[in-house]
């Protein structure tokens, strides 16, 4: 704090001039006031986010009863377990496939919404954003019921097309498909709305110029829309990658990791091991494996944000 006061005093010396002493105390108050205003935030983030994040590193180095330090013992144990590698594989399949399709669907739908006259856009936007608004725990229950093994509404409908009953959540491959499908359903509207905002910010003159130069529809997208939207596409994708990678509710409610652990991702397996299996250190070790991916995504997002800040 002393440091703060000294620094702002120097600023006063330059800017102030007359009435130096009263201004000095005012600006002294300013830094103090600013610090006090951010103090609750600093405490919250420090105690409930930063501390636990590092604490989980410590936890990961303890044995099951949390009495003995085992170093990398938990990690060694994980590396030897087949389930762990299954979880790694599934987390990657889940996150990459889901984000890819969300981005693709979001991009296409945003174009359709952008295409139609402005008067009706609000209505469509409203309907398309509904999956994003409903709490995922609630909507996943509806999907669970749609996928129900004996009364599945999907299978009932498919039977009219001669497609046999599909074991939506019972078979490993179909369970993965179902989990990803629900994730796409929940997340695609976010992309749609972000891309729509980006599309609206592309100046029309660019399209006019492209049209005059004889660019066709595909060329307009490739040479005008995509370069203009690059930043937002990148940031939204990275952002969604973090959220999807760390997803919990959808997998937990739809399959609870089954059948035979074939849909577990890091978060659900950490819950299974840490809370249900009451092996907190092992659970913490599992969830720590999300960190590298999150860190890489965060670095890229931050770089992007800073770049934008400098341009402005």
């Amino acid at each position, binding site marked *: 704090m002393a440091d*703060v006061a000294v*620094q702002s005093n120097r600023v006063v010396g330059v800017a102030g001039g007359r009435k130096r002493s009263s201004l000095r105390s005012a600006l002294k108050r*300013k*830094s103090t*006031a600013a*610090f006090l205003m*951010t103090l*609750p*935030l*600093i405490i919250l*983030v420090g105690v*409930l*986010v930063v501390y636990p*994040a590092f*604490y*989980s590193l410590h*936890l990961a180095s303890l044995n099951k009863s949390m009495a003995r330090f085992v170093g990398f013992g938990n990690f060694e144990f994980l590396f030897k377990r087949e389930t762990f590698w299954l979880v790694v594989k599934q987390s990657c399949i889940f996150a990459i496939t889901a984000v890819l399709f969300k981005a693709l669907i979001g991009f*296409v*739908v945003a174009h*359709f*919404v952008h295409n*139609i006259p*402005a008067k009706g856009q609000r209505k469509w936007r409203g*309907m398309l*954003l509904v999956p994003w*608004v*409903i*709490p995922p*725990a*609630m*909507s996943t*229950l*509806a999907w669970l*019921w*749609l996928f*129900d093994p004996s*009364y599945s*509404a999907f299978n009932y409908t498919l039977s009219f097309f001669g497609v046999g009953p599909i074991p939506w959540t019972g078979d490993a491959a179909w369970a993965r498909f179902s989990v990803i499908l629900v994730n796409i*359903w929940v997340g695609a*509207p976010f992309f749609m*709305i*972000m891309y729509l*905002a980006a599309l609206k910010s592309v100046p029309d003159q660019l399209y*006019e110029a492209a*049209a*005059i130069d004889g660019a066709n529809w595909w060329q307009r997208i490739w040479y005008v829309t995509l370069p203009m939207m690059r930043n937002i596409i990148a940031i939204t994708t990275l952002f969604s990658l973090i959220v999807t*990678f760390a997803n*919990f*509710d959808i997998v937990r409610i739809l399959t609870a990791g089954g059948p035979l652990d074939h849909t577990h991702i890091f978060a659900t397996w*950490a*819950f299974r091991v840490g*809370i249900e299996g009451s092996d*907190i250190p092992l659970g*913490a070790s599992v*969830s*720590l494996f*999300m960190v590298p991916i999150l860190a890489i*995504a*965060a670095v890229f*997002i931050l770089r992007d944000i800073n770049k934008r800040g400098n341009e402005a």
Partner: protein
Amino acid sequence: MSTVTIDKAAPTRKVKYGSMSRDRAWALKWSYFFLTIFAMFSLLPPLYMLITSLKSSAEISAATNPWWVFNPTLSNYIEILTSNQFQRFFFNSAMVSIFVVTITMLISVPAAFALARMRFWGSATLATGVFLTYLIPETLLFLPLFKMFAAFGEFTGIQLINRWYVLLIVYPTLTVPFCTWIMIGYFASIPKELDEAAVIDGASWFQTLTRIFIPVAFPGIIAATIFAFTVSWAQFLYPLVFTTSIDQLVLPVGIITTLIKGDVFAWGQIMTGALLGAAPPLIIYAFLMDYYIAGLTAGATKG
């Protein structure tokens, strides 16, 4: 927007009027066609919730068309709304959300103001730090937090695990960073002349915040409030980890733990509960969609 579409077609219209407008009409038709498909996909689960919630359990287990209600009944709604358990869940959810929104706003509005306007030592780093915090998922923190609260209970005798108010402590970790982040963006967009004038007129920092920043950035504050509410209403992992007794549960966890007993699913009631649980965010969204969307787009893009 209507002007935009006209502009786009304008330069070529003189040259070949017919084909261009025909292309345009085709594009429009296809747009509506695909939008209808996507809207159906979007609205399918909530619609199915509604259909099922109006059925009796006899009709649900009968092998009839699942997409149609033959004998609509409100019995599921009556049962859920009069059940003490569910009233408790609603009450807990509402309490938690209202408190969390209040706490979030009390913390993040002043913090965002200070970070946007009052440069001080480390303010830029702190703003970035807030954004990074927002990127840390709750799935990484629930185990250490669980252990911390358990240890806190052993140490002080104050029990936090399995009390609904523990959620008031942990939810702000999700809402505060995001709300602060979007509010920094809103506050930063307010012209400097406005608050400089206020300071010259002798307003204190607190007065500048309450008389100028809060009224001017009101849309941003509404957006942040909606977000804080939606996040705390929808949160599933934290209540699942930190609460277990029936009387401490919030709605999403309550529905899942009380209505699913082993392999027996009371689907009529589950769907009714899920629909009622989805209703508050949907209603707020129906009225304040523009703020919601503004917040959504501001959150991830504003630097």
